[in-house]
């Protein structure tokens, strides 16, 4: 490749000519954003987010589509380039509607993933819900009781019938978890050696300590009071948050190794310098705001007059103040209400709240005010105390009437006294609850004493709060952080928790040498608030009232300090979760638009205007379209047509209203959509998303596990995406694997077949049993039994299963291999090895691809993509197919032949070659038996076949010429391409034709027979016999047919793993009858099937996504299978079975792999393999093909096919049924198996 010299941002570099600027920049470590560009597609250049500047050009150019040229000077990151990109993003966002994050989460100071935990609660996973909350908030028990619930204030459901009980649900999950014998506790990282001190044991410090401890840091909290919790303990009354509950919650925090030293007060007992001297490297100040504001009226110092915080604080200290008969509370906040309700509980006969504004202005929570009124608290509004009188102790309160004047800066109308309106009430106590502020005397005293002290350097506001950075909590003193009320003034617990979390993260960053405020910035678009949200969009929401919190009856309440709110019942919680409207974006964590918007610091609303509005389209069973999120990059449209060849999507209309739409504006399911999900993957936003599998969608921050697809034999690389340990989606790994980032409907959505009818517990004779009981029962009478395994078992699982068979003296077989064996034996007989000789890469590089189309385009989509790529490169494509499949329509020659006619067509092509004088003896390997072959197909000449089958002779001849004349020929077929009765001979002819054409083996050429199952090749290699195949015991297979043995009664026990022979039977009654004759039937499967229904012992199995080990694909490539989620590993179950029958097998997948490699030459690779093609005959080892084998004449009489192999797989069958029920177009549910 020629090189050209260009300058990238002023640096001279050499890059390959023909590269785009984008690729050249990336190759030189310069990243350029793009939304419309896709590696798999030709440049489209529409989004302009990749714009760059070329020196000497007035206009910008899209770097994705502009090729480098000698001498080009490119600027990728100048301010004007950034301005273009920023405006492109602003324009795109101006026509992009949705919530990046749900309003509830956005409203939460700690950004608790509300929808996440609601989703988990909906699934009954209360512990996981608590775990999710505790990722940012260690106080769900407390916050679930006392939070001010900004989330609920923003809940969009307010516009319908009231907010979701978000906080009650959090409490529900946390209550459930804490009553569990083993409440959730996060893992703690190994000690880092870093020491942190926190001052004050309130929610801010405890939160900081919780996360610092998890990170492995050594945290000590210094607390002045005798117990922890801060205002949660000393400000919130028992009846709202029981001390026991708070104590349990704090216990879970200190349980992580956090030390608390009580009775230690900063300023009195130690200074900041002392802490640093003691080796603490950072200090967090969570000092709270526990001092009460003064009323500034005469009599404030009389006995019986208390500050609200002192009053409640004494409750926390278990030292109840002696209240009299009549208590007056001054103030309208929550503290006032708490003091009032507490006074009642302490025996006051009359409690009066005196508040200077009206009820409307009360800052206290409405529900709390209501509860106080219910309990009999009286309220004097528009009244302010003027003096307190009494003889040494409080006896009378004088107050003055107020009226509301002009609004002040808080927006509330300012109360103004009405002259001469004073009145007096008799009271025994006055509790002043008119506001709180930090008590920083300790700091100030130290500062005054020593002007050089750290305390003196701590900058305060004139309200007496500490100044701290918003992102990190860092104060004016290095390594001293602060958060919570001491910074915010008296605010909420959740804000303190949020601040503690931020400070912990900042301190952790400092320990890692990172910038203290290096918080990634997030970008959010947000829909209108619920009170201005377009009502018509909520019209379809079914009204459903909010669940009511069960409460203690009023009479019981005021006589005790018992908790008033009893918590939602499970039933209520499960009803309440249904009310969630699922706001927020499914791609919130992966959206490229959002990422770039943050990176380029866009201004929202600057260019705002009309939005092309169009409601979400949920008619497709797997794919959701949200047109208002589409940015018209066209990636979905192009991937669908150019890569998948389906053209199910297109552009619609012009101008601003142009849109991406399913073809002809039909529902997507009614188009040529193959449900491959390529469009979902291509979409840079959430205009196209996979519909969620869970009851609630998340959005999830997914964990990713790279593995190999468990469906067909292609062996696509997949990304198993899990959330909270559950598989929620499967995606291709971008650009990775044989599939190069593509995937088909089964690979992507097929796992949903395992979502219902799951077998969750072992059964013995129909009754649930423990694992031990079931395993014992399973192996008790298995001696001499037959063992069957699915071709979707890993090599390691299959190996262990084979060991079981061997130990009980039985044989191993597979129903899923039925019918496939004979096809592969053709390869063995002609080429010496029962495996394919070509790779997918060979397909892409072939000059002629010969496809005996067994629905490859539909069944093995990714293989079809390789063929399409070859055709796009200019390869000739010859297709035999009974109808005009996609491959047929792109073929140079399409021979329309039914499966019954395939043999004749192949024979005609062979004859054409022989007539043309192909010299078989000159082939690189000896093809003997040519006379026999010739003799067997005499008469099947091109003209004879053409006339017999009524097809154009010209086409047939051209097909033969293309195939026989090819330089790099790859032949593709799979078992379903051939009629069962003649499959043996037909496959033989196909391989012979390839051999005659010189295209059976060699560099860049070969025969690729596609396995219909992920590990069909592996099972064959491990000696699993096709059971119930077409040739029977006497022909190709050359060994006894296990199924015949069962039917004849020769075998009386069987172990079937992952297969449903009854469901897959062509005559289910016959198969069921045979199985019923067994005295002992053990079935292990993931879902209930017709076969498990007959089993004596049923063992649960994990689906392939949870399997570990390796698969051998159609190319004979061994690839790693990694487990994502799942319960008891299959390998463990199988090993337990093996152990019970006396077989010794290694326990782990890598060990088994090692054993396999040692015992069988065929898996001759050390260690766990990773995508190496092994033992392609004649290639890997350079050995010749089986030159001794005669090219035997075809003509097996044909046997009986008992099973439709595809349906023996229950998960796949369930998925296909699901697809069918969803009404997808017939192309997704294909003619299956080898049944006609």
């Amino acid at each position, binding site marked *: 490749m020629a090189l050209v010299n260009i300058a990238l941002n002023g640096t001279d570099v050499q890059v390959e000519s023909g590269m785009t600027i984008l690729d050249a920049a990336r190759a030189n470590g310069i990243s350029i954003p793009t939304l419309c560009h896709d590696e798999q597609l030709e440049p*489209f*250049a529409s989004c302009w987010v990749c714009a760059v500047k070329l020196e000497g050009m007035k*206009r910008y150019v899209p770097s994705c589509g502009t090729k480098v040229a000698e001498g080009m000077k490119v600027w990728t990151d100048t301010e004007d380039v950034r301005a273009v990109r920023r*405006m492109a993003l602003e324009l795109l966002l101006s026509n992009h509607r949705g919530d990046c994050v749900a309003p509830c989460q956005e409203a939460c100071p700690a950004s608790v993933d509300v929808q996440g935990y609601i989703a988990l609660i909906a699934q009954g996973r209360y512990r996981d819900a608590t775990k999710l909350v505790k990722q940012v908030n260690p106080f769900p028990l407390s916050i679930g009781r006392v939070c001010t619930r900004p989330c609920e204030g923003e809940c969009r459901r307010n516009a319908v019938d009231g907010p979701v009980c978000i906080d009650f649900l959090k409490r529900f999950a946390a209550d459930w978890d804490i009553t569990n014998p083993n409440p959730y506790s996060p893992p703690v990282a190994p000690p880092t050696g870093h020491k942190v001190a926190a001052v004050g044991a309130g929610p801010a410090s405890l939160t900081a300590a919780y996360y610092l401890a998890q990170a492995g840091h050594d945290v000590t909290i210094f607390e002045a009071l005798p117990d922890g919790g801060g205002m949660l303990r000393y400000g919130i009354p028992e009846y709202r948050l029981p001390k026991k509950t708070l104590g349990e919650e704090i216990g879970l925090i200190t349980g992580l190794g956090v030390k608390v030293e009580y009775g230690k007060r900063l300023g009195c007992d130690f200074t900041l310098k002392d802490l640093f001297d003691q080796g603490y490297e950072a200090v967090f100040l969570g000092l709270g705001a526990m001092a009460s504001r003064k009323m500034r009226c005469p009599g404030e110092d009389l006995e019986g007059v208390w500050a609200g915080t002192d009053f409640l604080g004494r409750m926390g200290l278990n030292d109840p103040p002696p209240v009299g008969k009549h208590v007056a509370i001054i103030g309208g906040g929550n503290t006032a209400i708490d003091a009032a309700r507490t006074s009642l509980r302490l025996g006051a006969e009359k409690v009066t709240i005196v508040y200077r504004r009206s009820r409307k202005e009360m800052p206290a929570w409405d529900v709390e005010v209501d509860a106080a009124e219910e309990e009999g608290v009286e309220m004097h509004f528009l009244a302010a105390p003027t003096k307190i009188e009494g003889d040494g102790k409080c006896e009378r309160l004088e107050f003055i009437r107020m009226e509301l004047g002009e609004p002040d800066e808080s927006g509330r109308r300012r109360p103004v006294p009405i002259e001469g309106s004073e009145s007096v009430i008799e009271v025994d106590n006055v509790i002043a609850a008119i506001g709180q502020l930090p008590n920083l005397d300790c700091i100030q005293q130290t500062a005054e004493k020593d002007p050089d002290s750290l305390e003196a350097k701590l900058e305060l506001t004139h309200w007496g709060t500490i100044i701290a950075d918003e992102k990190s909590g860092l104060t004016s003193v290095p390594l001293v952080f602060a958060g919570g009320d001491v910074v915010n003034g008296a605010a909420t617990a959740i804000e303190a928790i949020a601040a503690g979390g931020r400070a912990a993260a900042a301190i952790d960053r400092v320990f890692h040498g990172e910038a203290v405020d290096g918080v990634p910035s997030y970008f959010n678009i947000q829909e209108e608030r619920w009170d201005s949200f377009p009502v018509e969009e909520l019209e379809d929401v079914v009204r459903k009232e909010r669940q009511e919190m069960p409460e203690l009856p009023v009479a019981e309440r005021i006589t005790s300090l018992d908790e008033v709110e009893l918590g939602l019942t499970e039933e209520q919680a499960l009803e309440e979760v249904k009310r969630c409207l699922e706001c927020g974006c499914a791609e919130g964590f992966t959206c490229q638009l959002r990422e770039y918007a943050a990176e380029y610091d866009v201004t929202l609303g600057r260019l705002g205007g009309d939005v092309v509005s169009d409601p979400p389209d949920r008619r497709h069973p797997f794919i959701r379209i949200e047109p208002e999120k589409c940015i018209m990059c066209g990636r979905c449209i192009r991937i669908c047509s150019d890569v998948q060849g389906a053209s199910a999507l297109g552009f619609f209309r012009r*101008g601003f*209203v*142009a849109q991406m739409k399913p073809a002809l504006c039909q529902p997507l399911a009614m188009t040529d959509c193959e449900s491959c999900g390529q469009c979902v993957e291509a979409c840079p936003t959430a205009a196209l998303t996979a519909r969620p599998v869970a009851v609630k969608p998340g959005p999830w921050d997914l964990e990713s596990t790279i593995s190999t697809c468990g469906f067909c034999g292609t062996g696509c690389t997949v990304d198993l995406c899990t959330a909270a340990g559950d598989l929620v989606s499967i995606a291709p790994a971008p650009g990775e694997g044989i599939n190069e980032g593509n995937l088909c409907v089964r690979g992507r959505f097929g796992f949903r077949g395992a979502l219902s009818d799951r077998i969750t517990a072992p059964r013995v004779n129909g009754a649930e049993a423990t694992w031990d009981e079931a395993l014992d029962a399973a192996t008790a009478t298995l001696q001499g039994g037959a063992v069957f395994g699915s071709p979707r078992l890993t090599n390691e699982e299959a190996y262990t299963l084979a060991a079981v068979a061997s130990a009980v003296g039985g044989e191993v077989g597979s129903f899923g291999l039925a019918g496939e064996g004979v096809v592969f034996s053709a390869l063995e007989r002609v080429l010496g090895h029962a495996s394919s000789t070509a790779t997918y890469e060979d397909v892409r590089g072939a000059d002629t691809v010969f496809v005996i189309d067994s629905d490859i385009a539909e069944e093995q989509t990714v293989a079809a993509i390789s063929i399409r790529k070859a055709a796009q490169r200019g390869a000739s494509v010859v297709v035999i197919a009974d109808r005009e499949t996609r491959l047929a329509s792109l073929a140079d020659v399409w021979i329309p032949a039914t499966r019954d006619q395939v043999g004749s067509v192949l024979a005609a092509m062979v004859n054409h070659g022989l007539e043309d004088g192909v010299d078989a003896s000159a082939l690189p390997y000896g093809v003997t038996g040519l006379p026999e072959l010739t003799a067997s197909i005499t008469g099947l000449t091109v003209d004879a076949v053409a006339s017999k089958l009524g097809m154009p002779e010209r086409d047939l001849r051209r097909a033969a010429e293309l195939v026989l004349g090819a330089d790099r020929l790859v032949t593709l077929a799979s078992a379903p391409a051939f009629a069962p009765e003649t499959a043996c001979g037909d496959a033989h002819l196909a391989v012979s034709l390839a051999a005659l054409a010189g295209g059976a083996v060699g560099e860049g050429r070969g025969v690729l027979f596609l396995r219909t199952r992920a590990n069909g090749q592996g099972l064959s290699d491990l000696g699993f016999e096709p059971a119930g195949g077409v040739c029977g015991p006497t022909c190709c297979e050359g060994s006894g047919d296990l199924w015949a043995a069962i039917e004849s009664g020769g075998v009386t026990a069987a172990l079937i793993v992952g297969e449903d022979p009854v469901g897959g039977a062509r005559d289910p009654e016959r198969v069921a009858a045979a199985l019923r004759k067994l005295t002992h039937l053990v079935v292990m499967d993931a879902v209930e099937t017709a076969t498990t229904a007959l089993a004596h012992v049923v063992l649960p199995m994990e689906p392939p996504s949870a399997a570990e080990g390796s698969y051998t694909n159609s190319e004979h490539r061994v690839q790693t299978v990694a487990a994502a989620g799942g319960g008891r590993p299959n390998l463990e179950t199988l090993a337990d079975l093996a152990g019970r029958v006396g077989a010794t097998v290694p326990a782990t997948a890598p060990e088994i792999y090692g054993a396999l490699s040692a015992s069988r030459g065929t898996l001759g690779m050390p260690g766990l393999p990773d995508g190496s093609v092994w033992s392609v005959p004649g290639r890997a080892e350079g050995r010749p093909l089986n030159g001794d084998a005669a090219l035997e004449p075809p003509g097996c009489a044909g046997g009986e096919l008992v099973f439709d192999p595809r349906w023996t797989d229950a998960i796949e069958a369930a998925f296909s049924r699901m697809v069918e029920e969803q009404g997808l177009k017939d192309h997704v549910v294909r003619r299956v198996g080898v049944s006609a």
Partner: protein
Amino acid sequence: MAKTGATAEVTVGLSSCGIAAGAADVFSAFQRQFEEKGVDVRLRRTGCIGMCYREPIVDVTTPGGAKYTYGGLTVDQVERVVDEHVVGGKPVDEWLVRADGRELPDEAYYDQQVRLVLRNAGIIDPESIDEYIEVGGYEALTKVVTSMTPDEVIDELKASGLRGRGGAGFPTGIKWDLARKAPGEQKYVIVNADEGDPGAFMDRSILEGDPHAVLEGLAIAAFTVGAQEGYFYVRAEYPLAIKRLRIAIENATERGFVGDNILGTDFSFKVHIKEGAGAFVCGEETALIASIEGQRGMPRLRPPYPAVKGLWGKPTNNNNVETYANVPWIISHGAAAYAAYGTETSKGTKVFALAGKIQRGGLVEVPMGLTIREVINDIGGGVPEGRTFKAVQLGGPSGGCVPAEYMDTGVDYESLTKTGAIVGSGGMIVMDDTTCMVDIARFFLNFTQDESCGKCTFCRVGTKRMLEILERITSGEGRDGDIELLQELGEKIISSSLCGLGQSAPNPVLTTIKYFRDEYEAHINEKRCPALSCKALITYDIDPDKCIGCTVCAKKCPVEAITGERKEVHTIDQELCTKCDACRQACKFDAVTVS
């Protein structure tokens, strides 16, 4: 008995413009009259002769060749023309608009025109290949295929200085050379007849008036670049042009000017017509090619240019109608004769479509470099009486607005570009003092916004946002900073769009801001439309001094906003008034005022 009279032939202009004005009926009326009266005079049809403002137009030609032109002829007037002039030999003087040897006012329309492209339009019968051959048609093609090499053709074109008349002005000789040199056996030539600018009708008139000239130019191009096939991409809204093209192709094939072995040589050339569905963007060459291929008409990034990778991925030459129509003339008359017209860098002539607030609107062809003043005032007769010329929009919706003070700018590529406008395809929309420049910018942007293919972010969304800003300005809701935002958006749209549509869509806005910023400011700051055109910003009142209480306005008012007793001063209820202008038009006493 046949009367021959004093006339050799009668010619009726039957282009779309004429037919729209009733020319087909006039033609039939002549036919009927001739039949009824047994007049044996040849009745011919021809294309548009340019005076669209005078349609229907009828030429009466004497045997001696003297030509008398009637304008605005109605069916009722035909009998008198036949009786008095065709038969009687005495022209009906009061209906004549032009006559050889007479000084009629419309003569000025032609004084400064040089008709090379329109050489046959309005003269020959476009449906007759014989008439085309009679005036020298296909001589150039014959010359090229029998005696010239492709290089010689290209040299001739380069020497002529001909530049693409579609808008961009790329030198045609160089373009053909690129396609000729591009490797590949299979090549194509395309005629871009997807004329879509509002107010532009040059290509339509040429195709309707002289289809063979374009076909001949195309065949010469095919020979030169080595193409075997050609396409006319004509918008389907031009049925008459398509019909005449079909006839032309059919006849030319019969005569061996296109088809296999043209004029007995090895050169074969097949021509197709592709009807476009009316997407403006399909005038962009890559979108046009996509459309012919059956794809959505969406431009793609260039390079590769169509000359290298065009239709079906093969080298393709694409020029517009007018460019091709120039070619036979250049070959026949020589490059030097062509280059004698025009300026140093803009050679030859350019056809303009004069429209808008102008006395004589129509199709004019002038040498490049003539001033705007000469075109508008001398040829077009200026704006309607009583009004003052304010500006002219040049180059269609993608062009720019040139204000009165630049009237002495020459109409050539370089001079117009300096003003911020472009020659474009040749639309000239004249505006007078009643035109609001903000509103006119809104009008053009509305068009381009609708016609954006929707591909590029800036064009799809950016033009919409600009349009929204203009809409709010004209409705009196403009904000501080709107002008700057329009400029920022406009500049970025121009610099960050794939095709000419986006790259030029903001031009009308940017040029009106440049020249008429005060109007924008008046709308935004004073909520006032100086041209008294934006409805949201004007009020209708009745001048009590002038109103005599005739009640006419009240009767005309469709919303009953005007009240008043007979013979008393009327008043307008501003709440109800929809500013439809009906009252002002109805008032004979100029009592309705707009402010």
